[in-house]
Protein backbone atom coordinates (compact mmCIF):
# COMPACT_ATOMS: atom_id res chain seq x y z
CA UNK A 1 0.00 0.00 0.00
CA UNK A 2 1.20 3.54 -0.73
CA UNK A 3 1.82 6.01 2.07
CA UNK A 4 -1.50 6.61 3.86
CA UNK A 5 -3.16 10.01 3.71
CA UNK A 6 -3.48 10.22 7.46
CA UNK A 7 -1.60 8.38 10.19
CA UNK A 8 -3.09 8.41 13.67
CA UNK A 9 -0.78 7.20 16.43
CA UNK A 10 -1.63 6.72 20.11
CA UNK A 11 -4.41 9.27 20.01
CA UNK A 12 -5.88 9.77 23.48
CA UNK A 13 -8.70 12.20 24.22
CA UNK A 14 -10.01 12.76 27.74
CA UNK A 15 -12.79 15.06 28.97
CA UNK A 16 -13.56 16.52 32.38
CA UNK A 17 -17.04 15.52 33.55
CA UNK A 18 -18.93 15.78 36.81
CA UNK A 19 -18.07 12.12 37.45
CA UNK A 20 -14.35 12.54 36.90
CA UNK A 21 -12.08 12.32 33.86
CA UNK A 22 -13.72 10.42 30.99
CA UNK A 23 -11.02 8.65 28.96
CA UNK A 24 -13.08 8.69 25.77
CA UNK A 25 -10.27 7.63 23.39
CA UNK A 26 -7.18 5.73 24.52
CA UNK A 27 -4.12 5.04 22.36
CA UNK A 28 -5.98 4.85 19.08
CA UNK A 29 -3.70 4.08 16.13
CA UNK A 30 -4.90 3.71 12.58
CA UNK A 31 -4.06 4.59 8.98
CA UNK A 32 -6.43 6.08 6.46
CA UNK A 33 -5.17 4.88 3.09
CA UNK A 34 -5.36 7.25 0.12
CA UNK A 35 -8.54 6.70 -1.85
CA UNK A 36 -9.83 4.15 0.65
CA UNK A 37 -13.25 4.13 2.26
CA UNK A 38 -12.63 3.38 5.92
CA UNK A 39 -15.53 2.43 8.15
CA UNK A 40 -15.44 3.01 11.90
CA UNK A 41 -17.90 0.69 13.64
CA UNK A 42 -18.90 1.49 17.16
CA UNK A 43 -21.83 1.48 19.51
CA UNK A 44 -22.77 4.39 21.76
CA UNK A 45 -19.89 5.37 24.00
CA UNK A 46 -17.27 3.87 21.70
CA UNK A 47 -15.73 7.29 20.99
CA UNK A 48 -16.42 7.20 17.26
CA UNK A 49 -17.74 10.74 17.07
CA UNK A 50 -14.89 12.01 19.27
CA UNK A 51 -12.49 10.49 16.74
CA UNK A 52 -14.08 12.57 13.95
CA UNK A 53 -14.12 15.65 16.16
CA UNK A 54 -10.40 15.18 16.94
CA UNK A 55 -9.52 15.13 13.24
CA UNK A 56 -11.41 18.36 12.71
CA UNK A 57 -10.29 19.80 16.07
CA UNK A 58 -13.90 20.47 16.98
CA UNK A 59 -13.47 19.29 20.56
CA UNK A 60 -15.58 20.70 23.39
CA UNK A 61 -14.17 23.04 26.04
CA UNK A 62 -14.06 20.38 28.76
CA UNK A 63 -11.15 18.71 26.98
CA UNK A 64 -8.70 17.44 29.59
CA UNK A 65 -6.13 15.68 27.42
CA UNK A 66 -5.35 15.53 23.72
CA UNK A 67 -2.31 13.37 23.17
CA UNK A 68 -0.67 11.40 20.37
CA UNK A 69 -0.17 12.35 16.73
CA UNK A 70 -2.35 12.81 13.67
CA UNK A 71 0.03 13.04 10.75
CA UNK A 72 -0.95 14.62 7.43
CA UNK A 73 1.77 15.27 4.83
CA UNK A 74 4.46 14.67 7.45
CA UNK A 75 3.06 17.25 9.87
CA UNK A 76 1.46 16.49 13.21
CA UNK A 77 -1.90 18.26 13.13
CA UNK A 78 -2.06 18.33 16.90
CA UNK A 79 1.01 20.63 16.95
CA UNK A 80 -0.51 23.19 14.59
CA UNK A 81 -1.83 26.50 15.91
CA UNK A 82 -5.61 26.89 16.00
CA UNK A 83 -5.75 29.15 12.94
CA UNK A 84 -3.95 26.58 10.82
CA UNK A 85 -6.16 23.71 11.92
CA UNK A 86 -9.17 25.85 11.10
CA UNK A 87 -7.77 26.44 7.64
CA UNK A 88 -7.77 22.68 7.03
CA UNK A 89 -11.52 22.47 7.44
CA UNK A 90 -13.26 22.89 4.11
CA UNK A 91 -9.97 22.60 2.21
CA UNK A 92 -8.34 19.31 3.24
CA UNK A 93 -11.14 17.89 5.43
CA UNK A 94 -14.89 18.03 4.87
CA UNK A 95 -17.63 16.61 7.01
CA UNK A 96 -21.09 15.23 6.31
CA UNK A 97 -23.11 15.50 9.51
CA UNK A 98 -25.85 13.24 10.77
CA UNK A 99 -28.52 15.90 10.76
CA UNK A 100 -28.42 18.11 7.66
CA UNK A 101 -31.09 20.42 9.08
CA UNK A 102 -28.80 21.67 11.82
CA UNK A 103 -25.68 21.66 9.65
CA UNK A 104 -27.16 23.92 6.97
CA UNK A 105 -27.85 27.55 7.85
CA UNK A 106 -31.62 28.16 7.72
CA UNK A 107 -31.39 31.88 6.84
CA UNK A 108 -29.25 31.58 3.72
CA UNK A 109 -30.24 30.04 0.41
CA UNK A 110 -28.64 26.77 -0.58
CA UNK A 111 -26.94 28.61 -3.46
CA UNK A 112 -25.40 31.15 -1.15
CA UNK A 113 -24.02 28.44 1.15
CA UNK A 114 -22.73 26.26 -1.68
CA UNK A 115 -20.88 29.23 -3.18
CA UNK A 116 -19.36 30.54 0.06
CA UNK A 117 -17.97 27.22 1.21
CA UNK A 118 -15.83 27.04 -1.96
CA UNK A 119 -14.16 30.39 -1.22
CA UNK A 120 -11.53 28.95 1.11
CA UNK A 121 -10.01 26.96 -1.71
CA UNK A 122 -10.85 29.29 -4.60
CA UNK A 123 -10.46 32.82 -3.24
CA UNK A 124 -10.09 34.46 -6.63
CA UNK A 125 -12.83 32.62 -8.53
CA UNK A 126 -15.81 34.60 -9.74
CA UNK A 127 -19.20 34.08 -8.14
CA UNK A 128 -20.62 32.93 -11.48
CA UNK A 129 -17.97 30.25 -11.74
CA UNK A 130 -18.61 28.97 -8.21
CA UNK A 131 -22.36 28.96 -8.85
CA UNK A 132 -21.82 26.93 -11.98
CA UNK A 133 -19.80 24.36 -10.01
CA UNK A 134 -22.59 24.23 -7.41
CA UNK A 135 -25.23 23.65 -10.11
CA UNK A 136 -23.22 20.82 -11.61
CA UNK A 137 -22.60 19.19 -8.24
CA UNK A 138 -26.29 19.36 -7.29
CA UNK A 139 -27.16 17.69 -10.57
CA UNK A 140 -24.59 14.97 -9.84
CA UNK A 141 -26.09 14.15 -6.47
CA UNK A 142 -29.46 13.75 -8.15
CA UNK A 143 -31.23 17.02 -7.45
CA UNK A 144 -33.55 17.92 -10.29
CA UNK A 145 -33.79 21.50 -11.54
CA UNK A 146 -30.65 22.65 -9.68
CA UNK A 147 -30.65 26.23 -10.98
CA UNK A 148 -34.05 26.91 -9.39
CA UNK A 149 -33.13 24.91 -6.27
CA UNK A 150 -30.14 27.19 -5.59
CA UNK A 151 -32.57 30.00 -4.77
CA UNK A 152 -34.33 27.93 -2.09
CA UNK A 153 -33.75 27.64 1.65
CA UNK A 154 -32.96 24.39 3.52
CA UNK A 155 -36.52 24.01 4.86
CA UNK A 156 -37.82 23.80 1.31
CA UNK A 157 -35.96 20.52 0.83
CA UNK A 158 -37.04 17.08 2.06
CA UNK A 159 -34.77 15.13 4.42
CA UNK A 160 -33.27 13.03 1.64
CA UNK A 161 -32.73 16.13 -0.50
CA UNK A 162 -31.00 17.97 2.34
CA UNK A 163 -28.67 15.04 2.86
CA UNK A 164 -27.83 15.20 -0.87
CA UNK A 165 -27.14 18.92 -0.50
CA UNK A 166 -24.78 18.13 2.39
CA UNK A 167 -22.95 15.58 0.27
CA UNK A 168 -22.74 18.07 -2.61
CA UNK A 169 -21.41 20.71 -0.20
CA UNK A 170 -18.75 18.37 1.15
CA UNK A 171 -17.68 17.33 -2.36
CA UNK A 172 -17.52 20.93 -3.60
CA UNK A 173 -14.64 21.57 -1.21
CA UNK A 174 -12.48 19.03 -3.10
CA UNK A 175 -11.27 17.90 0.32
CA UNK A 176 -8.77 15.05 0.53
CA UNK A 177 -10.65 13.49 3.42
CA UNK A 178 -14.41 13.29 3.64
CA UNK A 179 -15.72 12.40 7.09
CA UNK A 180 -19.31 11.15 7.28
CA UNK A 181 -20.76 10.68 10.77
CA UNK A 182 -23.87 8.46 10.61
CA UNK A 183 -24.86 10.14 7.33
CA UNK A 184 -28.07 8.18 6.82
CA UNK A 185 -29.52 7.51 10.28
CA UNK A 186 -32.13 10.27 9.98
CA UNK A 187 -33.39 8.89 6.67
CA UNK A 188 -36.05 6.37 5.73
CA UNK A 189 -34.79 3.04 4.37
CA UNK A 190 -35.58 3.55 0.69
CA UNK A 191 -34.02 7.04 0.78
CA UNK A 192 -31.05 5.70 2.79
CA UNK A 193 -30.41 3.12 0.06
CA UNK A 194 -30.39 5.89 -2.56
CA UNK A 195 -27.89 7.95 -0.55
CA UNK A 196 -25.63 4.94 0.07
CA UNK A 197 -25.58 4.11 -3.64
CA UNK A 198 -24.83 7.75 -4.42
CA UNK A 199 -21.96 7.91 -1.93
CA UNK A 200 -20.46 4.75 -3.35
CA UNK A 201 -20.64 5.99 -6.94
CA UNK A 202 -19.18 9.36 -6.04
CA UNK A 203 -16.42 7.79 -3.97
CA UNK A 204 -15.49 5.50 -6.85
CA UNK A 205 -15.45 8.38 -9.32
CA UNK A 206 -13.74 11.03 -7.25
CA UNK A 207 -11.35 8.75 -5.43
CA UNK A 208 -10.93 10.76 -2.23
CA UNK A 209 -10.50 9.18 1.18
CA UNK A 210 -13.72 8.53 3.04
CA UNK A 211 -14.04 8.00 6.77
CA UNK A 212 -17.51 6.62 7.47
CA UNK A 213 -18.62 6.45 11.08
CA UNK A 214 -21.58 4.22 11.74
CA UNK A 215 -23.12 1.71 14.11
CA UNK A 216 -24.58 -0.16 11.12
CA UNK A 217 -22.48 -3.12 10.02
CA UNK A 218 -24.72 -3.38 6.96
CA UNK A 219 -23.95 0.14 5.84
CA UNK A 220 -20.22 -0.31 6.44
CA UNK A 221 -20.14 -3.58 4.51
CA UNK A 222 -21.83 -1.90 1.57
CA UNK A 223 -19.57 1.14 1.45
CA UNK A 224 -16.17 0.51 2.95
CA UNK A 225 -12.85 -1.07 1.96
CA UNK A 226 -11.38 -1.15 5.47
CA UNK A 227 -13.02 -1.46 8.88
CA UNK A 228 -11.97 -0.22 12.31
CA UNK A 229 -13.89 -1.64 15.27
CA UNK A 230 -13.99 0.68 18.27
CA UNK A 231 -15.13 -0.40 21.72
CA UNK A 232 -15.32 1.95 24.70
CA UNK A 233 -12.60 4.23 23.37
CA UNK A 234 -10.10 1.78 22.00
CA UNK A 235 -9.48 0.02 18.68
CA UNK A 236 -10.15 -3.69 19.18
CA UNK A 237 -9.81 -4.81 15.55
CA UNK A 238 -8.95 -3.48 12.09
CA UNK A 239 -8.75 -5.07 8.67
CA UNK A 240 -10.05 -5.18 5.10
CA UNK A 241 -13.87 -5.21 5.12
CA UNK A 242 -14.65 -8.61 3.60
CA UNK A 243 -11.94 -10.43 5.56
CA UNK A 244 -12.88 -8.84 8.85
CA UNK A 245 -16.58 -9.60 8.53
CA UNK A 246 -16.07 -13.13 7.18
CA UNK A 247 -13.46 -14.05 9.73
CA UNK A 248 -13.63 -11.75 12.75
CA UNK A 249 -10.79 -12.19 15.26
CA UNK A 250 -11.78 -10.21 18.32
CA UNK A 251 -14.58 -11.63 20.53
CA UNK A 252 -16.36 -8.25 20.46
CA UNK A 253 -16.40 -8.17 16.65
CA UNK A 254 -17.70 -11.73 16.63
CA UNK A 255 -20.42 -10.89 19.16
CA UNK A 256 -21.42 -7.78 17.24
CA UNK A 257 -21.76 -9.70 13.97
CA UNK A 258 -23.85 -12.34 15.77
CA UNK A 259 -26.29 -9.59 16.83
CA UNK A 260 -27.18 -8.84 13.20
CA UNK A 261 -30.67 -10.15 12.43
CA UNK A 262 -30.20 -12.74 9.68
CA UNK A 263 -32.47 -13.07 6.65
CA UNK A 264 -33.94 -16.37 7.83
CA UNK A 265 -35.05 -15.06 11.24
CA UNK A 266 -38.78 -15.41 11.71
CA UNK A 267 -41.22 -14.66 14.46
CA UNK A 268 -40.26 -15.90 17.91
CA UNK A 269 -36.65 -16.76 17.05
CA UNK A 270 -34.35 -15.84 19.90
CA UNK A 271 -32.04 -12.98 18.94
CA UNK A 272 -28.44 -12.66 20.07
CA UNK A 273 -27.24 -9.86 22.27
CA UNK A 274 -24.11 -9.01 24.25
CA UNK A 275 -24.75 -9.40 27.96
CA UNK A 276 -23.57 -6.71 30.34
CA UNK A 277 -22.92 -3.05 29.73
CA UNK A 278 -20.21 -0.86 28.25
CA UNK A 279 -17.77 0.06 31.06
CA UNK A 280 -17.81 3.55 32.50
CA UNK A 281 -14.83 5.35 30.94
CA UNK A 282 -14.44 7.52 34.03
CA UNK A 283 -13.66 4.39 36.06
CA UNK A 284 -11.77 2.09 33.75
CA UNK A 285 -11.22 -1.47 34.86
CA UNK A 286 -7.63 -2.72 34.63
CA UNK A 287 -6.89 -5.12 31.79
CA UNK A 288 -8.93 -5.72 28.65
CA UNK A 289 -11.82 -3.29 28.23
CA UNK A 290 -14.12 -6.03 26.89
CA UNK A 291 -13.33 -8.52 29.68
CA UNK A 292 -16.55 -7.98 31.63
CA UNK A 293 -18.69 -8.98 28.61
CA UNK A 294 -16.35 -11.41 26.89
CA UNK A 295 -17.39 -15.05 26.55
CA UNK A 296 -13.73 -16.15 26.33
CA UNK A 297 -12.41 -14.22 29.33
CA UNK A 298 -9.67 -15.76 31.54
CA UNK A 299 -8.17 -14.21 34.70
CA UNK A 300 -5.10 -12.93 32.82
CA UNK A 301 -7.38 -10.73 30.64
CA UNK A 302 -8.16 -8.57 33.67
CA UNK A 303 -4.51 -7.83 34.41
CA UNK A 304 -3.01 -6.08 31.39
CA UNK A 305 -4.49 -4.10 28.49
CA UNK A 306 -3.90 -6.26 25.38
CA UNK A 307 -1.82 -4.73 22.59
CA UNK A 308 -3.18 -4.31 19.08
CA UNK A 309 -1.23 -7.13 17.43
CA UNK A 310 -0.80 -7.94 13.73
CA UNK A 311 -2.39 -11.09 12.31
CA UNK A 312 -1.22 -11.21 8.70
CA UNK A 313 -0.29 -8.14 6.63
CA UNK A 314 -3.51 -6.12 7.04
CA UNK A 315 -5.21 -7.51 10.12
CA UNK A 316 -4.84 -6.37 13.71
CA UNK A 317 -6.69 -7.27 16.87
CA UNK A 318 -6.31 -6.44 20.54
CA UNK A 319 -6.95 -9.73 22.29
CA UNK A 320 -4.40 -11.81 24.15
CA UNK A 321 -6.32 -15.03 23.51
CA UNK A 322 -6.16 -15.19 19.69
Amino acid sequence: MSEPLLKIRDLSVHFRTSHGIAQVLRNVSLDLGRGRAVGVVGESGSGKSTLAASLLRLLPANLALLDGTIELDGRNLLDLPAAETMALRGTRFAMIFQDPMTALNPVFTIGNQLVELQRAKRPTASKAELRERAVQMLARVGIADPIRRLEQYPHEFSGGMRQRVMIAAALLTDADLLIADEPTTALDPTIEAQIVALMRTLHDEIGGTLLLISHSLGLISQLCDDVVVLYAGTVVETGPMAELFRNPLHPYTRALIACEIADDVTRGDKLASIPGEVPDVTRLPPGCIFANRCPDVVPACREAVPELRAFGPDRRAACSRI
Partner: protein
Amino acid sequence: MQPDLVQIQDATVAFGRVKAVDAASLAIQPGETVGLIGESGSGKSTLARLLVDLVRPSAGQVRFDGRDLATLDGPARRAYRRDAQMIFQDPVASLSPRMTIGRLLAEPLQIHGLDRAQAWPGVLELLRRVGLPETVLGKYPHQVSGGQARRVGIARALVLRPRLVVADEPTAGLDVSVQGDLVNLMTELQRDFGLTYLLVSHNLNVVRAMADRFAVMYLGQLIEVGPAQTIFTAPAHPYTQALIAATPRLDPDRTQSHTLLAGEIPNPNDLPPGCRFQTRCPLADAHCRAVEPPETLLGDGRTVRCHKPLV
Protein backbone atom coordinates in the same frame (compact mmCIF):
# COMPACT_ATOMS: atom_id res chain seq x y z
CA MET B 1 -60.92 -18.70 14.31
CA GLN B 2 -61.38 -16.45 17.30
CA PRO B 3 -63.17 -13.13 16.95
CA ASP B 4 -60.85 -10.22 16.22
CA LEU B 5 -59.59 -8.22 19.20
CA VAL B 6 -59.22 -5.09 17.10
CA GLN B 7 -61.00 -4.10 13.94
CA ILE B 8 -60.19 -0.92 12.14
CA GLN B 9 -62.80 -0.33 9.46
CA ASP B 10 -62.28 2.30 6.76
CA ALA B 11 -60.79 4.61 9.36
CA THR B 12 -59.66 8.04 8.26
CA VAL B 13 -57.80 10.56 10.39
CA ALA B 14 -57.62 14.01 8.82
CA PHE B 15 -55.42 16.82 10.09
CA GLY B 16 -56.67 19.81 8.12
CA ARG B 17 -56.45 18.85 4.45
CA VAL B 18 -53.99 16.02 5.03
CA LYS B 19 -55.37 12.56 5.63
CA ALA B 20 -52.71 10.98 7.84
CA VAL B 21 -54.71 7.76 7.70
CA ASP B 22 -56.92 7.30 4.68
CA ALA B 23 -59.69 4.68 4.77
CA ALA B 24 -57.51 2.04 6.44
CA SER B 25 -58.92 -1.36 7.41
CA LEU B 26 -57.01 -3.80 9.61
CA ALA B 27 -58.08 -6.61 11.94
CA ILE B 28 -55.89 -8.05 14.72
CA GLN B 29 -56.49 -11.43 16.31
CA PRO B 30 -55.96 -12.04 20.02
CA GLY B 31 -52.38 -13.13 20.75
CA GLU B 32 -51.17 -12.00 17.36
CA THR B 33 -48.36 -9.56 16.53
CA VAL B 34 -48.96 -7.25 13.62
CA GLY B 35 -45.94 -5.34 12.38
CA LEU B 36 -46.87 -1.95 10.96
CA ILE B 37 -44.14 -0.78 8.61
CA GLY B 38 -43.76 2.45 6.72
CA GLU B 39 -41.53 5.46 6.29
CA SER B 40 -41.81 8.69 8.26
CA GLY B 41 -44.97 10.51 7.36
CA SER B 42 -46.72 7.36 6.16
CA GLY B 43 -49.28 7.59 8.98
CA LYS B 44 -48.17 4.54 10.94
CA SER B 45 -47.93 6.33 14.28
CA THR B 46 -51.35 7.92 13.75
CA LEU B 47 -52.87 4.53 12.96
CA ALA B 48 -51.25 3.14 16.13
CA ARG B 49 -52.64 6.00 18.19
CA LEU B 50 -56.16 5.19 16.95
CA LEU B 51 -55.92 1.90 18.86
CA VAL B 52 -55.15 3.54 22.20
CA ASP B 53 -57.69 6.34 21.82
CA LEU B 54 -55.06 9.07 21.49
CA VAL B 55 -56.64 10.17 18.21
CA ARG B 56 -60.16 9.50 16.98
CA PRO B 57 -61.18 8.74 13.43
CA SER B 58 -62.84 11.49 11.42
CA ALA B 59 -64.57 8.75 9.42
CA GLY B 60 -64.86 4.99 9.82
CA GLN B 61 -64.67 2.93 12.99
CA VAL B 62 -62.27 1.36 15.44
CA ARG B 63 -63.72 -1.64 17.26
CA PHE B 64 -62.13 -3.26 20.30
CA ASP B 65 -63.51 -6.60 21.39
CA GLY B 66 -66.42 -6.05 19.02
CA ARG B 67 -67.44 -2.66 20.41
CA ASP B 68 -67.13 0.60 18.51
CA LEU B 69 -64.86 2.88 20.54
CA ALA B 70 -66.97 5.91 19.64
CA THR B 71 -69.95 4.45 21.49
CA LEU B 72 -68.19 3.55 24.76
CA ASP B 73 -69.60 5.27 27.86
CA GLY B 74 -67.49 6.38 30.87
CA PRO B 75 -66.88 3.07 32.70
CA ALA B 76 -66.54 1.09 29.47
CA ARG B 77 -64.03 3.60 28.14
CA ARG B 78 -62.01 3.38 31.36
CA ALA B 79 -61.98 -0.39 31.13
CA TYR B 80 -60.86 -0.18 27.51
CA ARG B 81 -58.08 2.23 28.44
CA ARG B 82 -56.76 -0.37 30.86
CA ASP B 83 -56.96 -3.03 28.16
CA ALA B 84 -55.05 -1.07 25.52
CA GLN B 85 -51.63 0.33 26.46
CA MET B 86 -48.82 1.97 24.57
CA ILE B 87 -45.04 1.70 24.77
CA PHE B 88 -43.66 4.99 23.53
CA GLN B 89 -40.69 5.46 21.27
CA ASP B 90 -38.53 7.56 23.54
CA PRO B 91 -38.95 6.22 27.08
CA VAL B 92 -37.03 8.98 28.77
CA ALA B 93 -39.10 11.67 27.06
CA SER B 94 -42.37 9.85 27.75
CA LEU B 95 -41.69 9.38 31.48
CA SER B 96 -42.01 12.39 33.77
CA PRO B 97 -38.51 13.51 34.83
CA ARG B 98 -39.89 14.64 38.20
CA MET B 99 -41.17 11.24 39.30
CA THR B 100 -39.14 8.31 40.54
CA ILE B 101 -39.54 5.07 38.64
CA GLY B 102 -41.44 3.69 41.64
CA ARG B 103 -43.98 6.48 41.40
CA LEU B 104 -44.19 6.15 37.64
CA LEU B 105 -45.10 2.49 38.02
CA ALA B 106 -47.68 3.22 40.73
CA GLU B 107 -49.36 6.06 38.86
CA PRO B 108 -51.46 3.91 36.48
CA LEU B 109 -52.85 2.00 39.51
CA GLN B 110 -53.84 5.26 41.13
CA ILE B 111 -55.47 6.62 37.98
CA HIS B 112 -57.58 3.52 37.68
CA GLY B 113 -58.49 3.51 41.38
CA LEU B 114 -56.72 0.26 42.20
CA ASP B 115 -55.52 -0.53 45.66
CA ARG B 116 -51.82 0.13 45.66
CA ALA B 117 -50.95 -2.15 48.57
CA GLN B 118 -52.76 -5.01 46.93
CA ALA B 119 -51.33 -4.42 43.47
CA TRP B 120 -47.74 -3.67 44.52
CA PRO B 121 -46.45 -7.26 44.77
CA GLY B 122 -47.58 -7.70 41.16
CA VAL B 123 -45.62 -4.59 40.18
CA LEU B 124 -42.48 -5.93 41.85
CA GLU B 125 -42.94 -9.24 40.05
CA LEU B 126 -43.31 -7.36 36.78
CA LEU B 127 -40.14 -5.42 37.51
CA ARG B 128 -38.29 -8.69 37.96
CA ARG B 129 -39.84 -10.10 34.77
CA VAL B 130 -38.59 -7.17 32.68
CA GLY B 131 -35.13 -7.66 34.17
CA LEU B 132 -34.85 -4.59 36.39
CA PRO B 133 -33.45 -4.61 39.94
CA GLU B 134 -35.63 -3.14 42.70
CA THR B 135 -32.98 -0.46 43.21
CA VAL B 136 -34.29 1.39 40.13
CA LEU B 137 -37.52 2.21 41.98
CA GLY B 138 -35.86 5.12 43.81
CA LYS B 139 -34.16 6.48 40.68
CA TYR B 140 -35.35 9.05 38.14
CA PRO B 141 -35.69 8.13 34.45
CA HIS B 142 -32.55 10.00 33.41
CA GLN B 143 -30.48 8.08 35.97
CA VAL B 144 -30.85 4.71 34.25
CA SER B 145 -29.35 3.47 30.94
CA GLY B 146 -31.24 3.65 27.65
CA GLY B 147 -31.95 -0.09 27.72
CA GLN B 148 -33.22 0.09 31.30
CA ALA B 149 -35.46 3.07 30.50
CA ARG B 150 -37.08 0.98 27.75
CA ARG B 151 -37.74 -1.75 30.28
CA VAL B 152 -39.37 0.78 32.59
CA GLY B 153 -41.60 1.87 29.69
CA ILE B 154 -42.57 -1.75 29.09
CA ALA B 155 -43.26 -2.42 32.78
CA ARG B 156 -45.39 0.71 33.01
CA ALA B 157 -47.44 -0.38 30.02
CA LEU B 158 -48.02 -3.79 31.62
CA VAL B 159 -48.87 -2.65 35.17
CA LEU B 160 -52.60 -2.66 34.39
CA ARG B 161 -52.38 -6.09 32.71
CA PRO B 162 -53.60 -4.94 29.29
CA ARG B 163 -54.68 -7.19 26.44
CA LEU B 164 -53.38 -5.03 23.62
CA VAL B 165 -49.98 -3.35 23.62
CA VAL B 166 -49.08 -0.85 20.93
CA ALA B 167 -45.29 -0.44 20.71
CA ASP B 168 -44.03 2.55 18.71
CA GLU B 169 -40.44 1.92 17.52
CA PRO B 170 -39.52 -0.05 20.66
CA THR B 171 -35.88 -0.56 19.62
CA ALA B 172 -35.14 2.70 17.77
CA GLY B 173 -31.89 4.25 18.96
CA LEU B 174 -30.77 1.17 20.90
CA ASP B 175 -27.38 -0.38 20.29
CA VAL B 176 -27.53 -3.68 18.39
CA SER B 177 -25.85 -5.42 21.32
CA VAL B 178 -28.93 -4.80 23.51
CA GLN B 179 -31.61 -4.74 20.82
CA GLY B 180 -31.87 -8.54 20.75
CA ASP B 181 -32.47 -8.69 24.50
CA LEU B 182 -35.38 -6.30 24.23
CA VAL B 183 -36.97 -8.19 21.33
CA ASN B 184 -36.59 -11.48 23.24
CA LEU B 185 -38.14 -9.90 26.33
CA MET B 186 -41.16 -8.63 24.41
CA THR B 187 -41.65 -12.07 22.86
CA GLU B 188 -41.54 -13.74 26.30
CA LEU B 189 -43.92 -11.22 27.85
CA GLN B 190 -46.36 -11.78 25.02
CA ARG B 191 -46.37 -15.49 25.73
CA ASP B 192 -46.58 -15.15 29.52
CA PHE B 193 -49.26 -12.46 29.62
CA GLY B 194 -51.20 -13.45 26.50
CA LEU B 195 -50.61 -10.07 24.88
CA THR B 196 -51.64 -8.87 21.46
CA TYR B 197 -49.07 -6.56 19.86
CA LEU B 198 -49.20 -3.87 17.26
CA LEU B 199 -45.55 -3.16 16.58
CA VAL B 200 -44.75 0.05 14.71
CA SER B 201 -41.32 0.26 13.18
CA HIS B 202 -39.33 1.22 10.17
CA ASN B 203 -36.76 -1.46 11.05
CA LEU B 204 -37.88 -4.38 8.95
CA ASN B 205 -35.44 -6.78 10.60
CA VAL B 206 -36.84 -6.23 14.07
CA VAL B 207 -40.41 -6.51 12.80
CA ARG B 208 -39.54 -9.77 11.05
CA ALA B 209 -38.31 -11.28 14.32
CA MET B 210 -41.60 -10.47 16.04
CA ALA B 211 -44.55 -10.25 13.66
CA ASP B 212 -47.06 -12.84 12.45
CA ARG B 213 -48.39 -10.42 9.90
CA PHE B 214 -47.11 -7.28 8.22
CA ALA B 215 -49.14 -4.22 7.38
CA VAL B 216 -47.29 -1.83 5.08
CA MET B 217 -48.29 1.83 4.93
CA TYR B 218 -47.53 4.41 2.31
CA LEU B 219 -48.87 7.97 2.45
CA GLY B 220 -51.80 7.13 4.72
CA GLN B 221 -52.92 3.96 2.99
CA LEU B 222 -52.35 0.34 3.89
CA ILE B 223 -50.88 -0.90 0.64
CA GLU B 224 -50.12 -4.50 1.60
CA VAL B 225 -51.35 -6.63 4.52
CA GLY B 226 -50.68 -10.34 5.00
CA PRO B 227 -48.60 -13.09 6.62
CA ALA B 228 -45.11 -11.82 7.47
CA GLN B 229 -43.24 -14.76 5.98
CA THR B 230 -45.19 -14.60 2.70
CA ILE B 231 -44.67 -10.88 2.30
CA PHE B 232 -41.00 -11.02 3.24
CA THR B 233 -40.16 -13.79 0.79
CA ALA B 234 -42.45 -12.61 -2.03
CA PRO B 235 -43.74 -9.05 -1.65
CA ALA B 236 -46.72 -8.21 -3.86
CA HIS B 237 -46.50 -4.42 -3.83
CA PRO B 238 -43.50 -2.83 -5.60
CA TYR B 239 -43.06 -0.50 -2.62
CA THR B 240 -42.86 -3.41 -0.18
CA GLN B 241 -40.29 -4.99 -2.44
CA ALA B 242 -38.22 -1.80 -2.49
CA LEU B 243 -38.44 -1.50 1.28
CA ILE B 244 -37.18 -5.04 1.80
CA ALA B 245 -34.38 -4.55 -0.73
CA ALA B 246 -33.37 -1.28 0.94
CA THR B 247 -32.94 -2.80 4.40
CA PRO B 248 -29.19 -2.75 4.95
CA ARG B 249 -27.72 -6.12 5.79
CA LEU B 250 -24.24 -7.27 6.62
CA ASP B 251 -23.02 -8.39 3.23
CA PRO B 252 -19.21 -8.81 2.99
CA ASP B 253 -19.51 -10.40 -0.46
CA ARG B 254 -21.75 -7.57 -1.69
CA THR B 255 -24.29 -9.91 -3.21
CA GLN B 256 -27.32 -7.88 -2.13
CA SER B 257 -29.28 -6.67 -5.12
CA HIS B 258 -30.29 -3.06 -5.08
CA THR B 259 -33.62 -2.29 -6.62
CA LEU B 260 -33.33 1.38 -5.97
CA LEU B 261 -36.29 3.65 -6.06
CA ALA B 262 -35.93 6.90 -7.90
CA GLY B 263 -37.46 10.06 -6.55
CA GLU B 264 -38.70 11.24 -3.20
CA ILE B 265 -41.81 10.61 -1.14
CA PRO B 266 -44.51 13.02 -2.41
CA ASN B 267 -45.79 15.81 -0.18
CA PRO B 268 -48.97 14.56 1.57
CA ASN B 269 -50.50 18.01 0.91
CA ASP B 270 -50.14 17.46 -2.78
CA LEU B 271 -50.78 13.82 -3.60
CA PRO B 272 -50.36 12.65 -7.19
CA PRO B 273 -53.45 11.42 -9.07
CA GLY B 274 -53.96 7.66 -9.42
CA CYS B 275 -51.74 5.41 -7.31
CA ARG B 276 -49.86 7.25 -4.55
CA PHE B 277 -46.71 5.31 -5.33
CA GLN B 278 -46.73 6.10 -9.08
CA THR B 279 -44.09 8.85 -8.77
CA ARG B 280 -41.47 6.31 -7.60
CA CYS B 281 -42.77 3.01 -8.96
CA PRO B 282 -40.66 1.31 -11.63
CA LEU B 283 -43.79 -0.38 -13.06
CA ALA B 284 -46.13 2.61 -13.22
CA ASP B 285 -47.98 3.16 -16.50
CA ALA B 286 -50.70 5.53 -17.72
CA HIS B 287 -53.42 3.55 -15.91
CA CYS B 288 -51.51 3.79 -12.58
CA ARG B 289 -51.16 7.53 -13.06
CA ALA B 290 -54.88 8.01 -13.59
CA VAL B 291 -56.78 5.47 -11.49
CA GLU B 292 -56.24 4.83 -7.78
CA PRO B 293 -55.87 1.06 -7.25
CA PRO B 294 -58.54 -0.49 -5.01
CA GLU B 295 -57.73 -2.85 -2.17
CA THR B 296 -57.58 -6.30 -3.77
CA LEU B 297 -57.62 -9.68 -2.04
CA LEU B 298 -54.98 -12.04 -3.46
CA GLY B 299 -55.30 -15.83 -3.59
CA ASP B 300 -52.91 -16.30 -0.65
CA GLY B 301 -55.06 -14.20 1.67
CA ARG B 302 -53.24 -10.90 1.60
CA THR B 303 -54.63 -7.60 0.48
CA VAL B 304 -52.73 -5.25 -1.79
CA ARG B 305 -53.38 -1.88 -3.37
CA CYS B 306 -51.68 -2.18 -6.75
CA HIS B 307 -52.79 -2.52 -10.36
CA LYS B 308 -49.78 -4.73 -11.10
CA PRO B 309 -49.05 -6.88 -8.06
CA LEU B 310 -45.77 -8.80 -8.29
CA VAL B 311 -47.40 -12.14 -7.38
